[in-house]
């Protein structure tokens, strides 16, 4: 049974659910099977969000802890929180901006501390300036798609999703499709320049 389990995480309102929807539609376009389990309701009011995306020969909606193959995260704290869902050695693509939880008097770990703690556990963590780059491309809400582009470049998704399918899914499912396609391409390019795999 072949499958790919992707954990998406971040803070309510960052576009995690629309990212999941783009991935799911791209899998459909590519002729595959996909199951996406979302967090709705309470957790959307700026709370922490996890979405489970399971591609391939699977039946159940949730990725069990220790079984995820890849994480895309729009917040380093949330990446660390949900890393329990990942297999040892998995790639984590995470934006470099921390959104501090708005609670009076709490201590916020730094990006370096988080990265170090994840590396210690053997994760392959790739810090991506997704929000900054998406802003530069004139689409501040496109960080989710930038992360998708960066991870796509590494080849981990290629077996299940072809590139045209992503472009098509963006076109059919997102507002400002052309800008998002541009962001996706920039994400790929960023990874191509930074990562040698």
């Amino acid at each position, binding site marked *: 049974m072949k499958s790919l389990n992707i954990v998406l995480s971040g803070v309510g309102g960052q576009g995690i659910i629309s990212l999941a929807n783009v991935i799911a539609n791209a899998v459909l376009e590519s002729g595959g099977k996909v199951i996406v389990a979302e967090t709705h*309701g309470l957790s959307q009011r700026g709370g922490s969000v996890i979405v489970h995306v399971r591609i391939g020969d699977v*039946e159940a909606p949730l990725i069990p802890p220790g079984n995820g193959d890849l994480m895309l995260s729009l917040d380093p704290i949330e990446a660390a929180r949900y890393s329990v869902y990942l297999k040892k050695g998995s790639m984590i693509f995470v934006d470099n901006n921390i959104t501090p939880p*708005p609670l009076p008097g709490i201590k916020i770990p730094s990006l370096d501390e988080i990265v170090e703690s994840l590396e210690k556990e053997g994760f392959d963590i790739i810090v991506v300036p997704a929000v900054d780059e998406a802003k530069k491309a004139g689409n501040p809400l496109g960080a989710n798609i930038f992360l998708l582009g960066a991870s796509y470049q590494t080849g981990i998704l290629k077996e299940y999703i072809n590139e045209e399918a992503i472009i098509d899914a963006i076109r059919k499912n997102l507002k400002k499709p052309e800008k998002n396609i541009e962001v996706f391409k920039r994400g790929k390019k960023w990874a191509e320049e930074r990562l040698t795999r």
Partner: protein
Amino acid sequence: MAHREVLAEPGSRVVMLGNVAFARGALEYGVSFASAYPGTPSTEITEALSYASRILGGPYVEWSANEKVALEAAIGAALTGIPALASMKHVGVNVAADPLFSSAYMGVEGALVIVSADDPGMWSSQNEQDNRWYGIHAYIPVVEPAGAQEAKTAIIEAFKLSEKWKHPVILRTTTRVSHTRVIVEAGEIDIAKIKRKGTFVKNPEKYTLVPVHARRLREELVEKWEKISNDLSQNQVLNHAEGNPDSETLVVAIGLGYRYAKEILAAHGLLDNVRLLKLSAPVPLPKSLLLNEAEGREKIIFVEEGDPVIETLSKALFYDYNVRAEIYGKGTGHLKKTGELELHHVEKLLAKALELEKTYFSHAMIKPDIKLPPRPPVLCPGCPYRAVFYALRRAVGKARIRPIYNGDIGCYSLGVNPPFQMQDTIVEMGGSIGLANGMAHAQDDKVPIAIIGDSTFFHAGLPGLANAVYNRSPMLVVVLDNRTTAMTGHQPHPGIGVTARGVEGTELSIVDAAKGLGVEYVKVIDAFNIAEGEKEFYEALEYVKKERKPALIVAKGACILLALAAGRRIGVYPIVYRVDDDKCTACGLCYKAFNCPAIYSKDDGKAYINELLCTGCGECAQICPFDAFEPVDEVPPEWLRLMREAKPT
């Protein structure tokens, strides 16, 4: 949200949320009437039907005032001979329980499906409740889809079952069915069917539950129950067995449990070795099917989401028929009883029962060694409730009373957290006024303050308020009129005057309702105006102290997300605020005691505003003692109007 994919082209394959697949299935069956009260995880079913109704001109769809009314309306519709759907979250069925039980006695003419969306794990609920018990208790069959993959088929089958037996059917879904997206193939929708109207043919012997009729109907019901059980044993679409018929092991996998069992058995290469009984219509227990499949097995394993309902019923059945096997399930302690199922829990159960050595899903969890701050949901930046809580707390201090904050269910429940901690009780919808009634008479040292939202006020607040007037309960009622049912995704309600079909309805006035119920002290305040709030709350508390009667204040101010959405539609945008560094003294009041999520402290303790998060509500400018907050530009009056008057579309 619209969920346009509910109207996907027949024959196309589309990615759909389980709830949208339910809506699609209902349309394909030909549902002609749909009522609901919003509640996670059920809401998108009705949102999608509402979208379909606007485009297709049918079916009739409504957001009802509460679940009891929604179910009563659907029963009424079904008695006219058309297929009706009533959707609600699990606790909504508690509200609707009275008509639910009666509906089984009367039966229906068209068809009636009641969606109960259960929330194991309590992702957004006050309890975990397995509503299959309702089916057993009320003699109503329960259909429970095997995952979102089966959502569309299951609701169509539920309607067919209801039509066939002229009996209501409960469709029990759970969060991981309703809120899971899968690929669904769209079928045909017959528009004439969904637009049809029924006609009521009088039949008092069936439709009036006076004892003389009810006694007869009760006999018939019990008899029918056995027949439906037999029918479910034959229903190959929902209930069937697969795998090795001669295996010593039977896995009974109910609803979503089937997906977990199947994935694990497949991973272990056991799909052809054991017998797997899929039950997607488990109530009434399909006895003959179950007995057939259970006979001669050595081990029987139950996989179900929620309570060990089917396991318990089955064990009683096995006792009666002398089936002796080792049982593994929640009831025997082999599977955890709380929260939702995950693959590793079910694998552990199967590993124990089947003595499996290898595991595929039960890896050691890797936990990075770092302390992470929690990230609970919070009131949005610019939420009117923050200003109201702030003003109310100051008024309480000034009035020198000790308050009891009887809270309720809605976004304002988040006031339970710091910095406000102004929700001392949260029980169920309407419980704020209800509990305050008791506390007003049961003790004297504190003053009960009921805090209730506008949607909740119309849902379950009115009887409590009538009681407070009647019994002269000294209490303050604060109605938070944010122009919507915000927590569940901004649905309209009776106080808004917009209906689910997008046509105009009548806008009810909370003030008139309160006055009509006899509340003598009723005032409306601007929720965003902290000074006004403080003054009015103070005066109302003085009234309660002196007159020993209820007072009611409506704090009116739109949910800021509604105002932003309304603004985007007409091109009106808020002006963000900034902090004047020279005026800010680093007192910390704004980020410690007021705590708008857009306000942060810098290293020197001075405040700064994240302009991406700021919604330009202007509340911070009112609470800063040093006048350090100011808008970066002139605030358009149109925006100030939207903050007060925006509503859902």
